């Protein structure tokens, strides 16, 4: 596959990722209508929708800001990685804290979502080490495609977890 195609595919995936808050909003409405109360799934879904919604517009301005600072590449890379790792860590912490504040049991769904976000932190670590020491193409592509892949798999898992609770009533012949 050509490198241009890969770049275009990556951009397309990132664009597609910007529509995830809409999916999360629909999932929140679905889970609320199914369970009729605040559940662990609805908390996760609302929080992730807000987080995605807040993170998307600051990405490009932040990149231009770091580029305009006049720092060397290493410092810019460190600032970029530390910023996004801090955001991901904050997400994990707030998801846990929200369950404690609202007194809702933590299920397997939250654990998996937290592992997924930890995976994003691990990808940032891999990218940092790759850019500083190895400088290989494969690890770079792993980072570029890994982050959207983890986001989409979290969204897919939540979709599956919410739809699992949907119950269809059997149609009965009325006498």
């Amino acid at each position, binding site marked *: 596959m050509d490198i241009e195609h890969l770049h275009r595919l990556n951009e397309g995936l990132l664009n597609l990722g910007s529509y995830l808050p809409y999916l999360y909003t629909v999932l929140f409405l679905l889970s609320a209508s199914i369970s009729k109360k605040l559940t662990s799934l609805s908390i996760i879904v609302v929080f992730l929708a807000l987080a995605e919604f807040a993170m998307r517009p600051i990405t490009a301005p932040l990149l231009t800001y770091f580029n305009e600072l006049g720092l*060397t590449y*290493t*410092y810019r890379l*460190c600032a970029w*990685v*530390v910023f996004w*790792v*801090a955001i*991901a*860590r904050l997400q*994990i*912490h707030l998801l*846990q804290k929200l*369950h*404690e504040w609202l*007194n*809702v*049991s*933590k299920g397997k769904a939250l*654990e998996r979502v*937290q*592992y997924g*976000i*930890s995976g994003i*932190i*691990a990808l*940032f*670590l891999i990218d*940092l*080490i790759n850019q*500083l020491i190895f400088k290989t193409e494969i690890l770079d592509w792993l980072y570029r495609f890994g982050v959207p892949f983890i986001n989409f798999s979290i969204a897919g898992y939540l979709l599956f977890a919410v739809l699992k609770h949907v119950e269809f009533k059997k149609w009965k012949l009325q006498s």
Partner: protein
Amino acid sequence: MEIAILTLTLCVVVYSLVSAVLQAKRPFNYLPLGDDFGYYEMLVYEGILLSERLIAAANQPIRAAFEANHRLNHWDKRIQKNTRFTLVK
């Protein structure tokens, strides 16, 4: 300078990764304390919990028993403060 910042960054990233995984493993279960019970009901359940902890401290080092006893004494003070007026009637 550059090496110091790089080391700091690596430390921050590794620390946040490890603490994230540890936090993901930490369970949280629904606590049946709060709006579901009235205040006195909650106090009674708390007393039962504390006395069970004191009994369970028999197999533990003496320090645990002291702490459990201390907590139970505090609970007893709260009970006395709350029931002071109800006993007079």
